């Protein structure tokens, strides 16, 4: 199963990132996770939010927004947990485009969001290895 990430195009100019984040907070939307990838000319802001339609609506006024399906996996917050997940993907030659990870508030939990070239195969590989994947609802419930 996949979760919905929002990808936002940002000109690499002062204030662009802040403006995007401000729009989301003014709309009362909560960001659960984010990553910002940069090039010389532009940035790509990737967000996991608790209200996708609302966030997409306000961000579309500022820039271009895309909904991208990504895979979110839960792991133990211990050394080696991420390594294990990546080995499962490597074994089936699934390519990871990008990823970002964060710890949960509850002790012992961590999460990783992955964009892979074959989401279905990734889900099968991770499931097969006993890794639990999150749905949109479950992402919302993380504390």
């Amino acid at each position: 199963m996949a979760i919905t990430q929002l990808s936002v195009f940002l000109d690499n100019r002062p204030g662009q990132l802040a403006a995007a984040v401000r729009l989301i907070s003014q709309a009362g939307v909560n960001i659960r996770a984010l990553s910002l990838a940069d090039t010389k000319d532009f940035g790509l802001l990737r967000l996991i939010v608790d209200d996708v339609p609302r966030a997409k609506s306000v961000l579309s006024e500022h820039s271009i927004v895309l909904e991208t399906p990504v895979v979110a996996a839960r792991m133990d917050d211990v050394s080696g947990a991420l390594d294990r997940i990546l080995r499962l993907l490597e074994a089936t030659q699934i390519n990871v485009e990008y990823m970002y990870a964060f710890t949960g508030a509850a002790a012992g939990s961590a999460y990783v969001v992955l964009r892979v070239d074959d989401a279905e195969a990734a889900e099968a590989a991770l499931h097969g290895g006993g890794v639990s994947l999150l749905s949109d609802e479950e992402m919302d419930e993380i504390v």
Partner: protein
Amino acid sequence: MSNYYQKEIETASRETILAIQNEKIVRQVRYVYEHVPYYKKLMDEKGVSPGDIHSVDDIRLLPFLSKADLRDAYPYGLLGTDLRNCVRIHSTSGTTGKRVVAFYTQKDIDMWEECCARAIVAAGGSEEDVVQVCYGYGLFTGGSGLHGGSHKVGCLTLPMSSGNTDRQIQFMMDLNATILCCTPSYAAYIGEVLAEKGYRPEDNRLKAGIFGAEPWTEEMRRSIETSLGIKAYDIYGLTEISGPGVAFECEAQSGMHINEDHFYVEVIDPDTGEVLPEGSKGELVFTTLDKEGFPLLRYRTRDICVLSREKCSCGRTHVKMRKPMGRSDDMLIIRGVNVFPSQIETVLLNEGYAPNYRIEVDRVGNNDTLDVYVELNPDQFSDKISDIQAREKRLEGAMRAMLGIGPKMHLVAPRTITRSEGKAVRVIDRRKLHD
């Protein structure tokens, strides 16, 4: 003491020159009317026939030709003779995708090369000189023109074309080049590289430079003269009329003599087309007097200029034009290459972008820079950085194919390019090109 390549004509009296022009124009107009249906039609529409043209004073009766006509006539519409009589083409940018192709018979080539020879001798050249030609060779007329002129004078010609500056300098020093021919910004760059390599101006054998194909200021001239230890001469031309050598500077360095025995010049008001009195600032219009392959009558150059018939200390009697002071259209010259914003727009539309773009031109050091900012359409957005970068690369390739140079492409968010209420201001040129 002045040297002339063709002393008699270069120092001929006004009466003699006028007599030559009057004889030639009658023949050239009849020739064009009989050989170029495209222009015959324009003349017929205007109600002018060859019989109405008795002297150069009657040129004002003839219809104008513009870049748009040359584009519409591509490729053979303005050809003046059978292809079997033509020995070469040269080509220059059109305003959109269609280029302009000029045809030359051997006689046209000889005439053109003689004009360039006049320029080289005016710069002090003779068969004792070694001429380094760093203008581009190929479709561009710069390289071929100065190359041919150098041959006619009998100089040793180094056909370097542009680029590979290390090799340019190696040959310049090892083969004792005495005259340098290239764009002024390249000359300035060569000066910098020579200094970096530890050469002083007195270490090279150069005595003169013949620089053109782009606008340059008096300040830039002095800077080049100091850094290379030479006298720097201006040269002017356009592919449509022949190439470089339509006009050239003499030792007075105060304007370029137009080769009036081959080209008749008028200055017009760009908005009304009215011929302006001598000394007025206006658009240069050229009429070829003895071309065969691609004869053009009243071709509007879009260059804004002033003419002067003041006596010149060099002894030449042909009218002088000052450096062009700007354009009456939106053409840009970037690194010596003619670029029209409309060409850029054509590429963007072909590649599926909306025409929300901005062109920025600047000069960094001695190099012109060209940046194009265009808005990304929502349906072109991708979550992958590599996709967006691939788009920019693809655009750069398409631009290079169209323009001959590659701008740096920047994709930007929608609605970031200012919309204007009236005429869109799409070009920002930060260079100071004119005095």
